[in-house]
């Protein structure tokens, strides 16, 4: 169980973390989701005893991260964001090394990593530097699991990994969760939020919201539509000029627009766009995804700050 109370941390003039509190229950996957530079890595380093917070307390399974850091280092598994393993050691040597550092051996805890390790075992004589992103990530997870940790910290484990391997990775996390492991994971990918039991949306060192992914998307209170046309970039600019549309962001192959319910109708928007010369206009009401929620929460946070 992870308990975080009022954690703040600043580097020189930059406030990296601002009064964060949350709790991760045993056997839960807790996602910390936000863009680069939001403070995710700093938070993970403080939780894994690698940095000291300016204020606040954190306890892991009732152990204090500052006072009991030695005991904590025995019960956590940590996969840093930029973890690249020892490139010049083979898969087997890397795993053996980390097993020994944690006073255990591959044989002793093979059952823990078996499901993951069998996928890379055929290449065990290959050097880590020659592995693909997905295989590196699996090896890194094996290294973090080899000592049977009680709590697993994964800092952006899926960054730089192909979509197939990302999906596989989340499957692995779900099965690890089944075995009772508490997992804290960070990611900049909003679409991964749904895999977590609960998530915290973070931006500029502050939590925007902590809840289950479904609750967060259900609470989206604005009308949301996706808009497409033949020329997407002018469309974005034209949509932003339309009176009554609160926000318009580009989402892959369409633009998402939000506005207060009943202010605008689908037909009205379509006719405005047609007068601006757009063709093949396709407007669909949609259900909000995590990214829409994040954008909305981030915007209202900004406007709150704007009026002191």
């Amino acid at each position: 169980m992870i308990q975080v109370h009022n954690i703040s941390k600043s580097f020189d003039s930059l406030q990296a973390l601002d009064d964060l509190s949350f709790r991760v229950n045993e056997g839960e996957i807790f996602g910390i989701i936000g863009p680069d530079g939001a403070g995710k890595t700093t938070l993970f380093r403080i939780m894994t005893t690698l940095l000291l917070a300016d204020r606040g307390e954190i306890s892991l399974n009732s152990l204090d991260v500052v006072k009991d850091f030695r005991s904590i280092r025995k019960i956590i598994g940590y996969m840093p964001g930029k973890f690249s393993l020892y490139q010049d050691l083979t898969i087997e040597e890397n795993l053996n090394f980390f097993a020994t550092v944690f006073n255990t051996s591959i044989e002793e805890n093979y059952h823990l990593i078996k499901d993951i390790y069998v996928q890379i075992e055929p290449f065990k004589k290959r050097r880590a530097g020659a592995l693909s992103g997905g295989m590196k990530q699996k090896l890194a997870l094996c290294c973090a699991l080899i000592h049977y940790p009680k709590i697993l910290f994964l800092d952006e484990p899926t960054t730089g990994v192909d979509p197939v391997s990302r999906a596989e990775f989340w499957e692995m996390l779900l099965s690890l969760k089944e075995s009772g492991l508490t997992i804290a994971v960070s990611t900049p990918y909003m679409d991964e939020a749904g895999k977590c039991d609960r998530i915290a949306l973070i931006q500029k060192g502050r939590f925007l919201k902590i809840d289950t992914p479904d609750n967060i998307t259900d609470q989206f209170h604005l009308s949301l539509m996706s808009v497409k046309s033949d020329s997407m970039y002018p469309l974005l600019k034209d949509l932003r000029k339309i009176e009554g549309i609160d926000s318009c962001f580009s989402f892959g192959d369409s633009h998402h627009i939000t506005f207060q319910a009943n202010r605008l109708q689908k037909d009205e928007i379509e006719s405005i766009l047609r007068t601006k010369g757009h063709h093949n206009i396709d407007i669909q009401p949609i259900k909000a995804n995590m990214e829409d929620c994040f954008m909305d929460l981030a915007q209202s946070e900004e406007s709150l700050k704007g009026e002191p």
Partner: protein
Amino acid sequence: MKQFIAFIKKEFHHIFRDTWTMVILLLLPILMLILFGYALSTEIKSVNIAIYDPSKDSLSEEIIRKLESSEYFNIIRMLDSPFQIEEEFQAGNTGMVLVFCENFYKNTLSKGDAQIQLLTDGSDPNTAVTITNYASGIIKSVMRKSFASNPDAIRVNIITKLIYNPEMKSAYNFVPGVMGMVIMLICAMMTSISIAREKETGTMEILLASPMKPLLIILSKAVPYFFLSCINLLTILLFSVFLLKVPIAGSLIALLTVSLVYIFVSLAIGLLISSITSSQLVALLLSGMALMMPAIYLSGMIFPIENMPRGLQIVAQIIPAKWYIVAARNIMIKGLGFSSILKEFAVLSGMALILITISFKKFKLRLE
């Protein structure tokens, strides 16, 4: 203990699997030794000389005979007139022209002051000075022998006095210097870079967040480089004894003891550098600029410390390589006993103790 051994094994994997690390560790010391021993040699052999001797008496001919028989000089031409001197230099293959005055022997007897001119090519002043030193040495020894009964009759005015290296073999001076440099390079630079590399790749985060004690982490980083430095020390000694023919005049045990202490100093400096930097490049620049340059230029390896300005002389005192090179020279070249390097030994031990304490204290249990 098992952790420690696994860690050291891992370090050796890093070293042996990287070609450039291997080259730096094993070839560089030998390369430096050969470079300084041969290529940068200040010793001179078989210089072509020409002679103009108008007096042609017994004394001048005795001097010419001695010059001829020395291995340093090759008499290529006897000149007939002083006008040929310049064309001799312009031809370019003459290093020195020796000119006797007229009635050389007679002048020596009557005035006690006969003249010999040594003309050398000043465009290479180092060589010129060396050649004239050799030649005047030979001339003076002939004079002394000829006038053994009446030494007051001639002026003996020897300025350079070379006791321990009468042949001015440069390798004699460079071997201790190269040892001081190579050990500093391998211990300090390689240790600091290898720790910085772990910080850069993020593996240090894992190690720190693991149950392994931080002290054990740095110890296991230092041990492989300690071991390699010992090997390098031995290779340098073997090479210098058998290839450069520089004997170890004093006690080998004393030499190895002081070298071990110096290795500890260098390791501690490497650990210290690694604790204040987190990138390999900074570690490289720091150890390069802050350690290598002084170890080369301020240690007395190339330039004598006595000739430096006062300020630099003081700076030189805090350079470990300076103390090590003095000690190594005393034992290796001069063949003096351990008692002659007590001061150097004490200074180096003190430095080792202080630096190791500081670097252990400074090593962080966390990332910052």
